[in-house]
Structure formats: structure tokens, C-alpha cells
């Protein structure tokens, strides 16, 4: 069903079933109430006069693990990873608790796969060269190909550092 700009009625004209179906039934089926299929979801636009329901996603891997890889890689426990249906945008948060074994930086970022393919990048990573354990979060509004997209955290450490990562969490608000 598609939205049609509601007709303007004039006195003494007969209202047909086709008009009811087009201007009342089909239009009501494009409202937020009609699109809402379950609790804790939200409704966004999906083009002119078109709405879609979106479901936020979150995943966590609490396990503390390390890497010395100087390019983005999975830890012994891959992820966390979140798969959601998105439009052309998604707001993504990636956080973890981490430290470096020396004064070289360690990074936690994420790659995107599915409808969109994007490698993990320093541009949306959390990063520090601190040897003291700390927590940090990154945020990025991604432009995506609409459809099913998977966001998987990945990790690296510069030079001779060993990065230690724990309480790894990724949260995606699809738009």
C-alpha cells in the first residue's frame, strides 16, 4: 500500500469504495500505528511519504583478550557483532575497556558487511596509548546500502604493543 494525498470532499458527491480504500484505508496503513509491529521499536522515513520500522541492536563480549596484530583483526572470541536491517544510515557506538602494554596505541573499531562492505577504520575507533586500563566509546553516523548490515568489532595494536580488550560492546541504531 502507498500513501496518496487525501482527497478533498465536496458536498453532494458520492464517496466510492475505491476512494475509501485509497484515501482512508491505504493512508492509515502508512501511519506509525500501522507500521508498529512490536514494542521498543521506532519508526523512520523510508522515502517520500513512506515509513519503516527499525529495531536497534546491541551485542557484547565481556571476555578479556589480547592482540599484537598491527592490522585490524578478530580476537580469540570474534566480535561482538550486530546484524540489523537499516535504511541508508545507522548510528553506531563501539565501546570497550582496554589498555596498551607500552606507549604505543591500541585500537578497537568495527567492520561492516552484508549489504555494505566497509573495513574497520581508525576513523571510528576507540584508541589510546595509555598503559592504565580505561573505557572509551566511539560514535559514527554511517551511510550504508539499505538492507541487512552486520557490524563486527575488530582490534589492532601499533608497533610492539600488546592491546588488551574487555567488555567489548557494539550498539547500532538503524535509520
Amino acid at each position, binding site marked *: 500500500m502507498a500513501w496518496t494525498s487525501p482527497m*478533498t470532499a465536496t458536498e*453532494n458527491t458520492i464517496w466510492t469504495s475505491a476512494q475509501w480504500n485509497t*484515501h482512508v484505508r491505504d493512508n492509515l496503513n*502508512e501511519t506509525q500505528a500501522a507500521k508498529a509491529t512490536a514494542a521498543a521499536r521506532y519508526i523512520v522515513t523510508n522515502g517520500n511519504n513512506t515509513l519503516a520500522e527499525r529495531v536497534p541492536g546491541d551485542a557484547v563480549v565481556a571476555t578479556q583478550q589480547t592482540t599484537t596484530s598491527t592490522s585490524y583483526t578478530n580476537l580469540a572470541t570474534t566480535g561482538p557483532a550486530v546484524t540489523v536491517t537499516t535504511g541508508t544510515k545507522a548510528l553506531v557506538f563501539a565501546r570497550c575497556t582496554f589498555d596498551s602494554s607500552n606507549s604505543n596505541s591500541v585500537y578497537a573499531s568495527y567492520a561492516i558487511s552484508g549489504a555494505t562492505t566497509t573495513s574497520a577504520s581508525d576513523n571510528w575507533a576507540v584508541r*589510546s596509548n595509555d598503559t592504565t586500563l580505561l573505557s572509551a566509546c*566511539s560514535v559514527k553516523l554511517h551511510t550504508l546500502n539499505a538492507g541487512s548490515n552486520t557490524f563486527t568489532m575488530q582490534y589492532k595494536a601499533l608497533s610492539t604493543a600488546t592491546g588488551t580488550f574487555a567488555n567489548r560492546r557494539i550498539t547500532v541504531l538503524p535509520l
Partner: protein
Amino acid sequence: MVWTVPKTAADGETLNAAEYNMYVRDNLLETHAAKATSGNRGAWFCGTGPNAGAERMCAENEVLTSQSSSSTSYVNLSTVGPTVTVNTGERALVFLYCFHDNSLSNWSSYMSYAVSGATTVAASDDTALRRQGNTNMQDMTVHLAMGLTPGSNTFQAKYRVAGGTGTWAVRRLIVMPF
């Protein structure tokens, strides 16, 4: 067009054109689907007052360049921004993200934001992302800006240090207007 509480029908009544136009046409025109005319995908619908609403869209700007400052009051870096201009109601969720550090171990570097346009708000430590010391950090903070004047508002990142020289890179500002 405005929203009118839909009438309750009674058996034997006829629905006249004026009633259809008021309770069906005009009320449908106040729904999210009717308001979605910009072609945007991913916008949401916020109330602008009783029985009225408008489309809102999340916006982001970033400046990846690494630049420095030793100003103790909030200033622009050599590359101004990032800067985001959006239509807002009275509130907006503002995210700041960057890589930052300071040349000295005992001093802090700050990234905050100022608002201009319909509203004027100066950058403040209260809304800043802050890092003390000469170990680096790439992190974010979030602030719910309240008391905005509805309309077109521009949010621009600003920077300062308490001492030493601050360095900022991968600078990102995201605004979710309500």
C-alpha cells in the same frame, strides 16, 4: 492544516464533506507519512506542540585533520569545525568525538561546541570532551542540549587547553534534533 480530535460517529448520521475534510483529510495530513516529503530516509517525527509534528534528521560533520592549539579560551582550529546545521525543536542530542592529547602531563585538552543561528550558546567545559595528560585518547561524549530556540541551529566544535598544547584529530560532531 491542523489536527482535530476525530468525531465519534453515531448510527443514522451522514458524513458531510466538511466533516470528511476536517476529521479525515486534515488529520491524515498531520501524520508522519504526510510530513515525509523531503525524500529523506532515516528521519523521525517529533512533536512541535499539541497534535503537531515535524520531520527531524540526524546530521554529522567531521574534520579528520590533526591540528593543535595552546589557547586557554575556546577557539577554532586552523580548519574550523566540524559544523552541523539542522532544524531543531527545543532539544537536540549532541555527540562529540575526537582523538586528543596534551603536550604536558598535568594539563587538559577540551573539545566542546557552540550554538548559533536561532540560538546562541557559547562553548563550555560543561559539555566538553576532556583529556588530561600526554597519553592520547580517541573517545566521545554526549550532551542533551535543552532550551534551544526552535529553528535552524548551527553546532560548531571549539577547542581549548588548560595549559600546554592540545592536539586534536578525527574530529566529529553529530546532532540528533528533537
